[in-house]
């Protein structure tokens, strides 16, 4: 296999798009989806109670708060959708998608990053506004933060590839959207 076809990005010693790199992130996203989905079902009154092993009424206080219902659908529902987007964009594309489908890698990064930021904001709001903590909300926040690091190396490989295409006089946009110009 020539360097042009190698799934390992130039200057790297591993392939960030390999399945062994992506599957753990997708599994984490699915676990996050299950946790956030469970909390959303409580917020939608499908369940009458919510599991809370450490903080007494903390989960109820947080999940029933006004902040959790700012948007048309409860915040846990938005989180579940975010995790689902992470899982789907984590699966799409082959093991050289960092250069053949940079757009999906960037969408993947954009889906993972803000979810982590939103999680930290919600973790701050829990005790500051309501003097309460919610165990599964904290677990969801940890999951979303753990996903960021391993997702960003693939984003880095795609951005390096796009820069390389641009430096060679190719169309960065075409490479971004269709993978053309892939070396």
């Amino acid at each position, binding site marked *: 296999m020539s360097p042009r076809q190698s799934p390992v990005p*130039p*200057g790297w010693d591993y392939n960030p798009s390999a399945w062994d790199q992506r599957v753990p992130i997708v599994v984490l996203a699915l676990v996050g989806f299950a946790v956030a989905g469970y909390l959303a079902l409580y917020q939608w009154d499908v369940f009458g109670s919510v599991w809370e092993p450490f903080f007494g009424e903390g989960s109820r206080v947080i999940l029933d708060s006004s902040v959790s219902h700012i948007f048309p659908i409860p915040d846990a529902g938005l989180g579940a959708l975010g995790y689902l987007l992470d899982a789907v964009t984590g699966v799409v594309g082959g093991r050289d998608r960092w250069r053949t489908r940079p757009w999906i890698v960037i969408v993947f990064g954009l889906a993972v990053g803000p979810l*982590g930021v939103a999680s930290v904001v919600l973790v701050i709001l829990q*005790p500051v506004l309501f003097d309460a*903590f919610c165990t599964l909300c904290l677990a969801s926040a940890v999951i979303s933060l753990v996903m960021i*690091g391993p997702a960003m*190396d693939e984003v880095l490989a795609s951005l*390096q590839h796009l*820069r390389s295409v641009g430096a060679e006089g190719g169309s960065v946009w075409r490479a971004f959207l269709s993978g053309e110009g892939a070396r």
Partner: protein
Amino acid sequence: MIAQVVGIVVGVALMAAPAVLGYAGSTASDVQRTIGPTAAGLALIAVWQATRSVRLPNIVLGVVLAVSPIVVDHQADAAAVAVVAGLVLVAATPFAGRERRRLGGGWRAAWPLHAERSSG
């Protein structure tokens, strides 16, 4: 990896300290429960090599934490927590561990997208 472990431990400790030491609900508690999860989150993201530099704002957060008893009212134990945690965060954050993997030049090699190819 010292920065990451210390950042996570200090962050979680800051979240728990107001309830454990009995100053929850105070302004000092709000400061620590804002900086705590932020510091822990940044340290957790920085565990991976591609995002290692994300830990660096923890130096600023450590300084803010250490001087917070001067700026807002703190009871004695809250002030002690703030100063110790802040100084530990500042001292530990530069030590992120060795970079073992090659990432093609890192983020400097990824931006700007329209840069000229350098010779060699």
